């Protein structure tokens, strides 16, 4: 069949679909850095982030992306981290952020 063109297209949904299969690497990320699970998305990490001044870098959002299975998006954003570790000092839940970002960017 020749597909007709109508001047517009069918779009991809932006919704997060938690029914889709979670990537296998996700479990290994949490095994390597279990403290990731303790994040409460308070935003302290993003508030003090050195890279955040120049790039769209909010660590808590990386963590949410990972949990939603959006690893590709997460890895791309994690690259902006300079591993300065200020976030780790400010995290109220003791997440080992430096190590976590390192693990994220290596996925």
């Amino acid at each position: 069949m020749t597909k007709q063109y109508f001047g517009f297209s069918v779009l991809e949904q932006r919704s997060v679909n938690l029914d889709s299969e979670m990537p296998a690497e996700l479990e290994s990320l949490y095994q390597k850095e279990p403290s990731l699970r303790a994040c409460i998305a308070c935003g302290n990490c993003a508030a003090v982030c050195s890279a955040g001044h120049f790039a769209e870098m909010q660590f808590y959002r990386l963590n949410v992306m990972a949990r939603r299975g959006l690893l590709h998006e997460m890895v791309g954003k994690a690259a902006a981290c300079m591993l300065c570790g200020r976030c780790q000092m400010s995290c109220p839940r003791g997440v080992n952020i430096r190590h976590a970002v390192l693990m994220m960017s290596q996925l």
Partner: protein
Amino acid sequence: MATISSRLKADIRFQDGLKACMNCGVCTAICPAAAYFDYDPREICQDVQSGDESILIGLLKGEQIWMCGQCLSCKTRCPRDNTPGYIIQVLRKISQEMGYFVHSRLGRQQLLLKRAIGHSILETGYCVHPKLIRPETHREQGPVWEWVMDNAKEVYEKCGSLYYEEGLGGMRKIDSDTLDEMHAIFQETGAFNLFDKIEQASEAKAAEMGLSFSDDDDNEYLREIQL
């Protein structure tokens, strides 16, 4: 000059539309626009609630306020009785009043809508009518629509429609006295003012973009904003 905040608050739809947002996201969850676009009615509420003029100008100049489809599904669900869809109506109104709508690709389409729907109301008394739905610009209407249009008068009459004839019934020709009344209402209630603002801002934008502009459909600006 009135601030955008005060312009917003002066509109009853804004008074009704934003009480106090608590950022819960029930609106975005079921928003047909949020399903496909980088659009988030919750964030719009938060932005507007901030009252920050630079944020508000950003909204008025941006693409996002034009993404809402006005289904008003958000109104049903909001636990704080807000209606993001009403806030959008007011933002769009102000964006047109202040000429900011031409800054965005989607905003510029207001000229098309003004010329299609606005003119149709004045000329025919209908927002839409069969002759507006030309098969060549509405291929999604399918081959049956083409057939309907090819045989329009007979098909409509068979279904009990007057098809642009005078009389009492569907798709009748609306008499000139009635259309005169519509004109008078448009004049009295500011619709022509809005039309003029849309035309003027569009014409200025066309000049800025180096595109030709005219009252008829044959100009570069109109073709550009259709894309």
